[in-house]
């Protein structure tokens, strides 16, 4: 479900195909509802080892993240800090992961490549950047740890399920229409780099 509250676009899980197809690269959104964490090892299990995720994640959000979690009093868990890790590490398996699991939102740090973009277009999903290094703000968006699976992978790599409120700002970087903001940005940066190398080198001649 998508709503606009005080000028903020808020998505609530289960996110539908229609919800994500209405999003465009550069949009800023916030998320309410169910997310789960998965990084390198979860992707290996699901795609290379062909195992099923322990629960249905259709319409939910995958976050590339390894939290610091501590046990809380009522035999549950509490997130101390959490933040996104580099999404590009999951680029190779992400096409199959999206296809197989039906996630609608992938949240991480930095951009992703053509495999992910292809899956986003084909199956209806988006990749979003959550500004990294903001581990306390992000931890406070998690209302409850609703479960943990595959804890044998260790705390950062395990599959943590959480309920979040107002998780964001999430900046859409890959949309369903084939746009990839990071890839576009990287090209611009590369072009400006050449201009700057030339400009700096010229100025250096006069000082050295």
């Amino acid at each position: 479900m998508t709503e606009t509250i005080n000028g903020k676009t808020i998505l609530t899980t289960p996110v539908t195909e229609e919800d994500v197809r209405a999003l465009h690269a550069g949009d800023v959104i916030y998320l309410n509802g169910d997310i789960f964490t998965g990084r390198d090892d979860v992707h290996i299990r699901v795609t290379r080892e062909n195992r099923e995720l322990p629960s249905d994640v259709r319409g939910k959000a995958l976050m590339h993240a390894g939290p610091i979690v501590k046990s809380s009093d009522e035999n549950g868990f509490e997130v101390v800090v959490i933040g996104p890790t580099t999404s590009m590490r999951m680029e190779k398996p992400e096409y199959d992961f999206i296809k197989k699991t039906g996630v609608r939102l992938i949240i991480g740090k930095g951009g992703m490549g053509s495999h992910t973009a292809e899956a986003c277009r084909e199956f209806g999903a988006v990749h979003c950047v959550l500004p990294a290094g903001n581990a306390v703000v992000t931890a406070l968006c998690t209302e409850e740890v609703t479960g943990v699976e595959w804890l044998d992978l260790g705390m950062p790599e395990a599959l943590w399920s959480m309920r979040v409120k107002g998780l964001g700002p999430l900046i859409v970087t890959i949309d369903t229409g084939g746009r990839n903001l990071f890839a576009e940005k990287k090209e611009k940066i590369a072009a400006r780099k050449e201009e700057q190398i030339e400009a700096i080198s010229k100025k250096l001649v006069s000082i050295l």
Partner: protein
Amino acid sequence: MTKQERIQRMTDIMVSFIGYTAVHLPDDIISKLGELKAAEDDPAALSIYDMMFENMRLASELGRPSCQDTGFVQYRIECGSRFPLINELEEILRSAVIKATADTPLRPNVVETFDEVNTGSNTGTGAPSVSWKIIPDHDGCEIYTYLAGGGCSLPGHATVLMPGEGYEGVVRFVLDRLAEYGQNACPPLLVGVGIANSVDTAAQLSKEALFRSVYSQNPNPKAAEMERLLEDGINAMGIGPQGMGGKASVLGVNIQNAARHTATLGVGFSTGCWTHRRGHIVFDRDINYVTDTHSGFTCNK
């Protein structure tokens, strides 16, 4: 104070200081981020700066680490030859990491190579890393601390250029690296450039450059001018906060230099992310301390 009391005192202060630097950014970084935010007009970049300041406020208020990656601990020591704990110093700094990991808490990030096991304590073979400089005939000790994040250590690189490639070659080396890896290293970045004889000396200097304030300048006027040119040039590349575009890509560029062989030009490159958790603490012989990076710090033990 007995020697044992001195050791205990210094260990307590270092545990407390490391924990403090995981939670609170250095004064110069906070003020620089404020300046970059004030100069920004891109709405997406501004919302990222807002989130950073909200995170810094909440981290301080709740005493939690500002980033979930609390890094790999690196020390640089400039120790007087007559400092009373010179022989015990490495052991003090190592046990401080173990205690700070449990107390803060810090995320256990240290993995032994080849065995590929996480030690759980943030210590291991050569971890924390320590680089030494002995100050003759002096009885105090200066310690630089750095929590090196994974994401911002990844762009690091060093090479030896041919002198004919000149300082233009240095510019290309630095800008190439930033264009390729800068977006994912959590910019705005502090860029450290080492210029010296070979890869080892240049790489070491590039890391030491990250221990300098973002407001500092290289004492050589030509090197200082090159710092300024690089800073403006990298900002003009438009990497922006989180690599999403914006006016500033860097917090600053610091160059550290040394002499070179006539036939070589060594260049090292290191980056620190916007969560640049470096600290500087100075002890006298009685283990009184002062810090010029974190004005709010007092040892709570």
